[in-house]
């Protein structure tokens, strides 16, 4: 009688132990899966915010061209150059990103737009303008997206075509 009872207790303990091991293993797997899933959701959300910059940047009042308080769907060339001088103030908005404009139509000499070129009478005699750049000290991945934007030159009153290039290091 005693040995039968002991055997049943042993069996019950064995079942409880196996069940506990399986339950703990299940919880660990679920926790890891859940953590990865949350990380992926955060990254996806950040990626969406990054893609949204393609829409936000050309519509920033600091860049958008306007005449007599009427806004137009283009970037003012001189405002873009002005913004490139105030990069430090935009970290809260852009974070670790690089924002470039590459003028593609009409064709312009292949060089970076600098302060000295800006002062020249034939500005923009260059085809690359770095609006914002902040690179993290270390990163695992880089993502680049680009979109065409119209650039208004208020001096010549012409519209050029540029590619807005956004780079995100994370």
């Amino acid at each position, binding site marked *: 009688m005693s040995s039968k009872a002991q*055997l049943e207790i042993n069996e019950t303990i064995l079942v409880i132990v196996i069940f506990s091991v399986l339950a703990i293993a299940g919880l660990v797997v679920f926790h890891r*899966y859940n953590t990865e899933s949350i990380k992926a959701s955060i990254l996806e959300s950040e*990626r969406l915010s990054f893609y949204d910059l393609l829409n936000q940047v050309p519509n920033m009042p600091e860049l958008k061209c306007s005449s007599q308080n009427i806004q137009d769907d283009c970037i003012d060339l001189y405002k873009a150059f002005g913004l490139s001088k105030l990069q430090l103030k935009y970290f809260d908005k852009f974070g670790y990103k690089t924002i470039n404009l590459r003028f593609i139509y009409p064709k312009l000499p292949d060089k970076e737009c600098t302060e000295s070129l800006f002062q020249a009478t034939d500005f923009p005699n260059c085809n690359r303008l770095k609006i914002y750049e902040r690179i993290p000290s270390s990163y695992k991945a880089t993502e680049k997206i680009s979109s065409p934007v119209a650039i208004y030159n208020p001096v010549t009153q012409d519209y*050029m075509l540029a*590619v807005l290039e956004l780079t995100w290091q994370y």
Partner: protein
Amino acid sequence: MAILRKAQVETFGLLIIVILIVFIAIFIIRLSSLSTDNSSNIKDSIIANNVITSITKVTICQKQQLPSILKACYNHALSCNTDSCQLLSKELSSMLESSGFSKNEYKLTAATKDKELLSIGDCNIKSGNVVASSPYTIYIEGSSAILKMYICR
């Protein structure tokens, strides 16, 4: 004793089946939520709309922009001493390819109700993965042309 053991084995088996079903259900739910790649479509939609708003503004020649050259194309008139329709096709292809689009990645169309004025790019808009811009209307003497950009991925 034998009946008890059998019952325990059955309970244990049932437990394993329940755990397996829970895991399979979690993976199915996860996979179904991954199947729609929304972020890529959102990005392409923004780009397609940016293409339309920017190319309609660009000065193509002698202070003329796309809407006025498209009107000339509709009326078979010249723009900058060139056939307007040909000028648009050539310049817009050049702009889009310089922007990084390959020929079979995009299609740009402009058409009135009765006439196609412009169609550049080899993207098959009937294929599955196509994102289109919002239609941009250009008014042409009693009619209107719809300009649309498609991006194939």
